[in-house]
């Protein structure tokens, strides 16, 4: 026999008892969602991953292409990045900024690939840039000249020291601010700023020297 009077019985109720007794209503959809994710956390992770692919695959591709400058290599890098995420999908919930985290993953992949690959000849860049760069209102000659110019500038970028080059390349992405670039590279924001300063000076020197 309970020591509590009948009117006080709800003080000792658990949440489950309260739900069953009818005074605490939980919407059916919430119950079903919770039951589904509890029953199959893997499926919930995979849905999160699918959403990440839909949202960020394009961004990751552009980051990868900016380093590798080859469409199929860039796509492979994006695929590899998401495969890595798939392998560590149980830690997805701990990631604070998924966009920066994903960019960091693909950035490391492309740097590793580039390190292992042979040096890319400038002629490859000219051909690829002529194919992919926007060419509205340009004649064939102007397009070829623009591609050649961009390829030459990229060749000069390649001559920069690695740290400066990386900051300069990442700073070209509109969606990345200095804090996020610092996070991708694993350095402080002030380092990013000083490297960018040096990169710009070095680039100016390289291009001006070439013109003289």
């Amino acid at each position, binding site marked *: 026999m309970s020591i509590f009077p009948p009117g006080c019985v709800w003080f000792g109720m658990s949440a489950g008892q309260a739900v069953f007794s009818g005074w605490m209503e939980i919407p059916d959809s919430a119950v079903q969602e919770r039951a589904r994710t509890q029953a199959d956390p893997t499926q919930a992770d995979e849905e999160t*991953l*699918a959403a990440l*692919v*839909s949202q960020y*695959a*394009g961004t990751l*591709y*552009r980051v990868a*292409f*900016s380093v590798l*400058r080859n*469409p199929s290599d860039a*796509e492979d890098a*994006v*695929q590899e990045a*998401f*495969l890595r995420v*798939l*392998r560590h999908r149980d830690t997805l919930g701990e990631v604070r900024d998924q966009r920066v985290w994903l960019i960091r993953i693909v950035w490391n992949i492309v740097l590793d690939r580039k390190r292992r690959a042979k040096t890319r000849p400038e002629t490859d860049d000219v051909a690829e*840039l002529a194919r*992919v*760069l*926007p060419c509205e209102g340009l004649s064939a000659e102007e397009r070829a000249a623009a591609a050649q*110019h*961009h390829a030459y*500038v*990229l060749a*000069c*970028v390649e001559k920069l020291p690695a740290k400066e080059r990386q900051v*300069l*390349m990442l*700073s*070209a*992405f*509109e969606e990345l*601010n*200095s804090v996020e*670039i610092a996070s991708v590279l694993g350095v402080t924001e002030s380092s*990013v*700023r000083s490297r*960018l*300063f040096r*990169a*710009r*000076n070095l*680039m*100016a*020197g*390289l*291009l*001006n020297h070439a013109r003289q």
Partner: protein
Amino acid sequence: MSYLVQNEFSNNSGAGEAEETLRLIARLPAPVGLEDRVHAGLRSAPRSARVLAWPAAFSPAGGWLRAAAAAAIVFVVGVVEADCFTETGMSSNSSSWNCGIVFPFVSRIASV
């Protein structure tokens, strides 16, 4: 902050050209169907690390396999130690480590 203090050195024409080229490349659109191909790649990827996974028949859920492995290690160490004592006649406070590994090297050095 877009383009990271880009106006700070905008008088620097060489750097400006480089950044313009890099920006052009950074703005290039991703190829059509990229997401679908990534989704398909993820669907066909193995779900777990099969090499490291336990076979179903030897599932360590009960822990018996680990216990058996631990017992086997204890048994082997015990046998080796017993052999050392009988072969060298060492007292029980000398270590089996010295007996099995260090002692042959010491004897070789002494012979040289």
